[in-house]
């Protein structure tokens, strides 16, 4: 009788364990709804108005590591060149913080590099035609 009870208890444990593995599957979703991430997103959204013109002119391009870079400063009038550098620097600061915060929000700071490379591919994928991006070899390519 004891054996029967103990074996049925084991089965309950097996069922519980398989349920837990389902919970783990659900947790495999990436958490992006934190106040820190929302703040960075908002800041980037506001800056996009300035950057969009530079993406179109080819002055700024999307890099292979999920950042932005001044690609052709000559595409910007001399007086506005300093502004481009500072907007690019601010954008890269936000992007680095975004990747770091997403990794941290999911309890895996070591995922930062993978999150960054995922974003790098998706930024380029979603870029408008005519925008410039850096291929894996480092060469600038027009989309």
């Amino acid at each position, binding site marked *: 009788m004891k054996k*029967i009870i103990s074996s049925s208890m084991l089965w309950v444990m097996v069922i519980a364990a398989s349920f837990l593995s389902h919970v783990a599957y659900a947790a495999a979703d990436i958490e992006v709804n934190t106040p820190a991430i929302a703040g960075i997103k908002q800041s980037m959204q506001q800056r996009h108005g300035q950057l969009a013109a530079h993406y179109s002119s080819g002055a700024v391009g999307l890099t292979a590591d999920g950042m932005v870079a001044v690609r052709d400063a000559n595409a910007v009038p001399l007086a506005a060149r300093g502004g481009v550098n500072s907007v690019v620097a601010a954008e890269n600061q936000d992007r680095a913080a975004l990747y770091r915060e997403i990794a941290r929000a999911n309890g895996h700071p070591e995922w930062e590099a993978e999150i960054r490379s995922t974003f790098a591919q998706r930024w380029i994928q979603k870029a408008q035609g005519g925008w410039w991006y850096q291929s894996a070899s480092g060469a600038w390519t027009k989309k």
Partner: protein
Amino acid sequence: MKITHLTSLVLLGTSLAACVTINIYFPAAAAEKAADKIIEEVWQLQKPAPERLNPGSEGQKAEKSTPAQSTQPQK
């Protein structure tokens, strides 16, 4: 009975091992989805809204259906 114990233990072991493996690997598909959502928000990309087209296409359908109905009595 021993066999039942053994299988339960093996199952328990594999289930627990599965839990650990799932958490270690980077969820690439979920990350891609999350990245897309953020990029769409930052770049304010709007997905094509087919719902907006529906009233127009329904109207066209309604217009088309009237001549179709008028042809039916002729048959």
